[in-house]
């Protein structure tokens, strides 16, 4: 059985349209302009992943919030669960960009890291 799926690559702003054909248990992908598109398509067909960003409150910082993200994309079907898990979480200043905020976030194999530096309030 052959099945065909069309995907739009989200790796870069070019947004290539990709064709994926399923035959005898393997996907053949075409339409990508670079290797990252091929990897995106294979991931998307097998186990889609997404990057997710949010902000957490900082206590005693020069700003009220610090932005965070995982250090690698997480499974797409975990995005809402992952967001809900951060309810009530706050950090203490100072926070350094790149600092690990939560190690092995929800056992997903990624660390949640700070994406900006927040010094203590003067």
């Amino acid at each position, binding site marked *: 059985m052959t099945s065909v799926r069309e995907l739009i690559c989200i790796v870069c702003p070019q947004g290539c349209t990709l064709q994926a054909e399923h035959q005898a248990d393997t996907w053949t992908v075409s339409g990508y302009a670079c290797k990252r598109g091929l990897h995106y398509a294979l991931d998307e067909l097998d186990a889609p992943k997404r990057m997710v960003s949010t902000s957490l409150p900082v206590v005693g910082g020069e700003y009220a919030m610090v932005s965070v993200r995982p250090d690698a994309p997480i499974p797409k079907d975990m995005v809402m669960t992952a967001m809900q898990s951060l309810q009530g979480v706050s950090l203490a200043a100072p926070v350094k*960009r790149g600092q690990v905020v939560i190690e092995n976030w929800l056992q997903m194999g990624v660390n949640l890291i700070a994406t900006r530096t927040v010094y203590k309030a003067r």
Partner: protein
Amino acid sequence: MNRLQVELAIVGGGPAGLAAALGAKQAGLKNILIIERDAHLGGILQQCIHSGFGLHMLGTDLTGPEYAEHFIEQVVGSEIELMLESMVTGLTAQRVLTVVNRYGATKVTTQAVVLAMGCRERARGAILIPGSRPAGVYTAGTAQRLVNLQGFLPGREAVILGSGDIGLIMARRLVLEGCKVKAVIEAMPWPGGLTRNLVQCLHDYDIPLYLQHTVTAIHGSGRVKAVTIAQVDEQLAPIPGTAFDCTCDTLLLAVGLIPENELSLQAGLMIDERTGGPVVTPSRETSAPGIFACGNVLQVHDLVDSVSQEGLEAGRAAAAWVQGRRATARSYGIVPGEGIRSLVPQRYDYPTSSVLSLVGRVTHPMQDALFTVSRKGVCVHTSRRKHLRPGEMFSVQIPAAALNDAGDLDVAVREVESHD
């Protein structure tokens, strides 16, 4: 009034201004000043906490704050001077700035100026939506600031007018925070933002997109209760009989950006009506000698990477001006024709020995399109594109060999038959 003298003053400490300062520094300027109205550098990147920044410039996928810090660290680690929480309220064609801050007013005399003020959002007043004036109507950027920097939700059930990137990004952001986004409404027949944002912001969360629709009324007293949505015709006028109400407590407006050019007007700079920004040469010099402009003050860019690139180049050009390497070539016009909505630069120098790089936007989506550049009715360069969309900036490189005579250039783009 306080007095200050610098070689180069940069108005704005966002991505364009930061890159301009670094470009001028690398070109050997010692005496550089960045003037920024916020308490922190980074501009709008501070609130753009999503990823997708830096793929071209830094070869890695970063969030806005990370991308900004990469440049801020280089600026802070150099001798570039900063005036934060300082507003430039005046600029003359002789490159004298008036700066106001908590210490009073300062007159800054300069040899060169780079304008990097960015843009601001079009608000409700600019698009004239009838109805009452309840709380709950925000521009998308204001909502982004509230959610990402201040930790407040603008509401619980939102309708978003406008499908540009900011509207799409905010749709996803509100869903992640537990809000319901009932619809994204777009007056044009095609979405305004990048395709990747349609996929990862709307499709992923099953948010409906209504093309060729608009919001025709806002209801509620005290707080938004509902909006009326109607289909529009090709002239963007609402079609009678198509209106329906959608309950919501929040309306976000993502209806376009306006380059912030009050200072440019004060200095008497020539403004391009299509871009809303100053008319510039390839080195991003405006119609006033020694005043340069880069980033979103010039035209609204899709990607911060191209803003940074333009900032670096404008900074280098400003340094060359201060160092006395001034252009002696005559400049000619670059005139947008069929299929072209906007084009930068608007002037080029002749004679020239370098490639002329044009960036701009098309009027409507095209397949198998051909750009033609002609001078005095004679075609000097053509360039093919598979797909063009108004939401994505195009770029056309004209080789120096094609610029072998003086005269204005006419640029057009139209669909042609595919030869594949």
